[in-house]
């Protein structure tokens, strides 16, 4: 049975973004990313994010797909923000209702115990309840800090203060917003553009540059063959896995030496089969008149439509606005 292996992140919907020329999408994404890097004003970044989210809504792609792409780097973001807030000591200490945001934590023997207990609990919980691991983790971290702030019974080991500074908070927020902007933008591109179109788009962008055309056309052909053969190779891998499983390969048991052997037993056939395929394919391509780097016509000619031009106009306005505001010192 052929379970179609979906490759890439493309989500098949019909929207104006899906229909845009891939070259237009790639160029716009790239330049907007640079623009966003230049912005150093939180409000401006918020406006950008709001705008991008509005565009996201018009793609007809469910929002949770976008949320899922945040999830991958959520941990990294939280750590970055956390370290910025805790260790950045530039600027004034933030005041809320006249009180400094300064906290004292004390590690006592009791809450050391509680901390260890919580860590064990966290891992045990993972065995039962596998969802929302990130949120679980955050809750447990918060609990550890809370215990160190309020449960102060028994002899203490070490005591420390954390104060939140304006600059830290500001930088943390800015990094967060910037990354959110960038991720949403690139998700927008990969969700609405087929890998093949992306490939064609990149080739199209570099086409006017004569000196690099040869390299780009070879690269584009390589990419397109890779895209063509990834599902096939995944299929072959599962067959190899099954073939070796019927010879007693079981990844769940065996010593380290066995494991190495088991991996070799998958890699060698994989290599042999890929090599054979590559050889056959090279023959077939050559016999059909393919000459690497030679000029070719394309069945899918990229064409700009009105909507692409409108997007380009928007892009120019966007970049101009940033430059003007930058010079004015506003962002």
């Amino acid at each position: 049975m052929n379970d179609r292996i979906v490759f890439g992140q493309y989500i098949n919907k019909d929207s104006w973004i899906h229909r845009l020329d891939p070259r237009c999408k790639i160029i716009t994404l790239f330049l907007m990313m640079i623009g966003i890097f230049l912005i150093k004003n939180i409000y401006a970044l918020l406006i950008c994010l709001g705008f991008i989210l509005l565009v996201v809504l018009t793609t007809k792609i469910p929002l949770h797909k976008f949320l899922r792409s945040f999830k991958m780097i959520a941990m990294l973001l939280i750590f970055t923000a956390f370290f910025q807030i805790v260790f950045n000591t530039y600027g004034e200490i933030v005041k809320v209702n006249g009180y400094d945001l300064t906290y004292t934590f004390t590690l006592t023997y009791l809450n050391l115990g509680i901390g260890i207990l919580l860590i064990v609990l966290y891992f045990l919980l993972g065995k039962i309840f596998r969802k929302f691991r990130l949120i679980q983790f955050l809750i447990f971290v918060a609990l550890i800090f809370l215990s160190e702030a309020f449960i102060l019974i028994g002899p203490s080991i070490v005591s420390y203060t954390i104060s939140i500074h304006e600059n830290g908070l500001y930088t943390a927020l800015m990094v967060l917003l910037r990354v959110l902007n960038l991720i949403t933008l690139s998700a927008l591109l990969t969700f609405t553009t087929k890998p093949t179109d992306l490939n064609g788009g990149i080739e199209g962008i570099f086409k006017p540059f004569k000196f690099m055309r040869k390299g780009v056309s070879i690269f584009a052909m390589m990419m397109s063959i890779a895209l063509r053969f990834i599902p096939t190779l995944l299929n072959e891998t599962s067959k190899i896995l099954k073939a070796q499983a019927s010879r007693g390969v079981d990844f769940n048991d065996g010593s380290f030496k066995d494991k190495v052997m088991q991996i070799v037993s998958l890699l060698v056939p994989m290599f042999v089969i890929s090599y054979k395929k590559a050889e056959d394919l090279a023959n077939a391509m050559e016999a059909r008149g393919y000459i690497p780097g030679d000029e070719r016509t394309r069945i899918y000619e990229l064409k700009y439509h009105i909507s692409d031009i409108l997007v380009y106009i928007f892009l120019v306005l966007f970049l101009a606005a940033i430059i003007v505001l930058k010079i004015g010192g506003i962002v």
Partner: protein
Amino acid sequence: MGINLSEVNLAYLKEKKQYKYAIKDINLRIDNEDEFIAIVGHTGSGKSTLVQVLNNLLVPTFGHISINFRENNNDVYYNIKASGKKVKYAISKDNINVKYKARVSLKALRKHIGLVFQFPEYQIFEETVLKDIMFGPKNFLRDENKAKEEAIKIAEMMNISDLLDKSPFMLSGGQMRKVAIAGILASKPEVLVLDEPTVGLDPIAKRDLLEFLKYLNEVEHKTIIIITHDMDVVGEYAKRTIVLNKGCIMYDGSKDEMFKNDEVIKTCNLNYPNIVKILANLKKKLNIDLDIYKYNIDDAFKELNRVLGDNHE
């Protein structure tokens, strides 16, 4: 030994809770040691899925599989019960007090039912033929010397002893396939399943391979199950045929009855073996009373002799 499948289904979830059945309501019993079974049917009729379910490489979606073999003088039963997402396994000695569990290693089952995939390239990886044949038994027996012994024995039986020190990648297609089969046989399975073993082989290598399977079946008393499209192979070698159509078993019985069953032949678009076609043609052309269901040249000639022979007059 016994294999028993009852109401076995395997379905893939398509979009919006639509199931696509690869195999459907399979009831199958294989408990005679000397069986030589051919599984035939269209591409996509579920043949490969069925044999992979037998070998526990694929887990059924619904149904019950019970397989038993003798291990160390005990009848050991492997049970798989599947109902939707829940699959329960059991290994028991008597099949009376069966304790089902969510997860059990059924690796031992694969030792008893050896599955040879279509292309030897999928499994061959060692630097010498000997090492490659040893790989299976080494995994199952965990004893290097014993594995080596088995490998050498099998190689002798298959007449490939002279290849043992060669690299398996330098062999011809037919030899490579033999090495792949030896690699499975070395684990001493009671049942040998082969997925289209003759595709891509030239006629001599093909005959050679099939004669070896026949020997395994008749002399070594191994149960042989082959998936094939080649009706000449079915005619000449199989004792029992199973016809799959759209994931269901459409026919299960002797090959003679299958070839006589017009409904099965037509629905599944099956061919007749060449010799049957020839005899049918002769019968028509010469208007003689031939039994056309003969599957090799000698039998066909004997039949001609019986009807037209000198001594008969």
